[in-house]
């Protein structure tokens, strides 16, 4: 029996979530401990499962080095928006208490292999990582902090795009965040963007795509328009690898696809080139 076949055989009766993780891609059963210590990367198919922002910070920064900035900046409800499922404010509040996050991105100062950086890490669990005014504020303020300290800025994106509940205010976050990034570019401050699964819509069409380096993880979904919208528009089926990190790299918009276990090393190495 091949080693991975052991992994796909669900051990009877004790297949509880606490003991076993099921790979969302190949459905392999992986001991939870092994799954977590491999940063949620499947040992069988190399599927990179989504990380929370706290896990991501632990993955790429030196232990204990992360100091959160602007934690007080939380979501706003500028339109007093309400749809068929109720008020946005109630939904956002529920998300805050469920995730313990104030917004879809956490920002702060940190060290990567001893190199001081300003870091922003998005979390898909917070309303699909959508770009709200609080998200925009945190990203913009962190960029300003990077400029003030003259330290490299790194953003890990994970977002479905705009936050429709904030309407035009959400759209404006694309302009605001890019304005702050543009000032880093003018000042010669390194800016690295890592597009993790998924990075689409308004986030891919703003700060995520304008890194000095655009990096990604294997098989991450990256694109502007949604697959269904495109299929309806052009009335043809899309290739299977469409909008994967590999597809986007092949088309020239990603510098490098980095395995999760190598991400910290890769960033540190890139930052040493950037810091000359």
């Amino acid at each position, binding site marked *: 029996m091949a080693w991975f076949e052991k992994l796909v055989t669900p051990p009877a009766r004790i297949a509880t979530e606490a003991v076993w993780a099921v790979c969302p891609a190949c459905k392999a059963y992986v001991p939870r401990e092994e799954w977590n210590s491999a940063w949620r990367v499947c040992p069988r198919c190399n599927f990179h499962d989504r990380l929370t922002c706290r896990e991501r910070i632990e993955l790429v920064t030196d232990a204990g080095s992360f100091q959160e900035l602007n934690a007080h900046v939380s979501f706003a409800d500028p339109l007093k928006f309400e749809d068929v499922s109720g008020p946005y404010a109630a939904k956002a509040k529920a998300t805050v208490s469920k995730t313990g996050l104030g917004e879809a991105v956490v920002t702060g100062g940190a060290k990567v292999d001893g190199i001081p950086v300003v870091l922003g890490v998005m979390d898909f669990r917070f309303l699909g990582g959508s770009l709200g005014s609080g998200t925009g504020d945190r990203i913009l303020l962190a960029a300003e902090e990077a400029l003030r300290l003259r330290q490299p800025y790194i953003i890990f994106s994970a977002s479905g795009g705009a936050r429709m509940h904030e*309407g035009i205010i959400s*759209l404006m976050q694309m*302009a605001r965040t890019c*304005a702050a990034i543009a000032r880093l570019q003018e000042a010669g401050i390194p800016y690295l963007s890592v597009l993790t699964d998924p990075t689409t*819509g308004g986030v891919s*069409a703003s700060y995520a795509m*304008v890194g000095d380096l655009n990096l990604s993880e294997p098989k991450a979904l990256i694109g502007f328009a949604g697959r269904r919208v495109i299929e309806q528009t052009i009335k043809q089926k899309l290739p299977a690898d469409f909008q994967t990190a590999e597809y986007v790299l092949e088309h020239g918009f990603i510098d490098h696809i980095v395995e999760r276990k190598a991400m910290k090393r890769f960033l540190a190495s890139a930052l040493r080139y950037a810091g000359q």
Partner: protein
Amino acid sequence: MSDIDFNQPLSPWQIVQLARTSGRPLIGDYIQGMCSDFVELHGDRAFGDDRGLIGGFATIGGERVMLIGHQKGKNVEDNIKANFGMANPEGYRKAMRLMKLAEKYHLPVVALVDTPGAYPGLEAEARGQAEAIAKNLTVMATLRTPYVIVVTGEGGSGGALGIAVGDVVLMLQYAVYSVISPEGCASILWRDGKKAPEAAAAMKITADSLLQLGIIDEILAEPPGAAHCDPHTMVQTVKDAVLKHVQALKSLTLDDLTAKRYAKLRRMGSATLA
């Protein structure tokens, strides 16, 4: 639009219909009516020449500017050529080239916005629609020349924003500007595209709401019965407003201009920054 009673306040959904109505002035009408000279400049220097987003040197009331804007067609045939005003990446890259050229030649940029959105196609994705728009956002934020925007019809999401970051945003009375079409929003959040009128109201996409939210700076009144009833007057109104703002912005130093632009973007649509 004969069913609209202008003596009553219009609903956001009625305004969406007006913004999309045929006969409303399009970029061709503005070029003809407000420019004594227009020299179209073609191509992104890499892939091709997008017909959904055009631009060139223009003279408006004696002011030499760089005019860029989405192009919709007057009829089906023209619309197919112009892709219904939905630009591809090469359109945004052409616009960026013209922005940079405007900066080099010290020409203010005037951008006319009228698009349902950036084109959602296979080729558009392959050629980097997201990157093309994103890059423009960084270029416009720091461009060292005045930048005046007029939302004339549909301000459709990232496709609109890709040429619409600047110093002053003007909007026609019955234009709309939104993060997603009311139909798109309704089909996602209401799970029913027919709820578009509700979505249009909830998203606050009309000029009045956007002025209150601080997203636009000035509303340009439309003639009685809306712009399509008197395109000539509408074009003159836009011309006068554009000239006024171009001339005012030209009096600032470029350092002041770009500092003010950043300060404006920093505040605009912020959750916490006053």
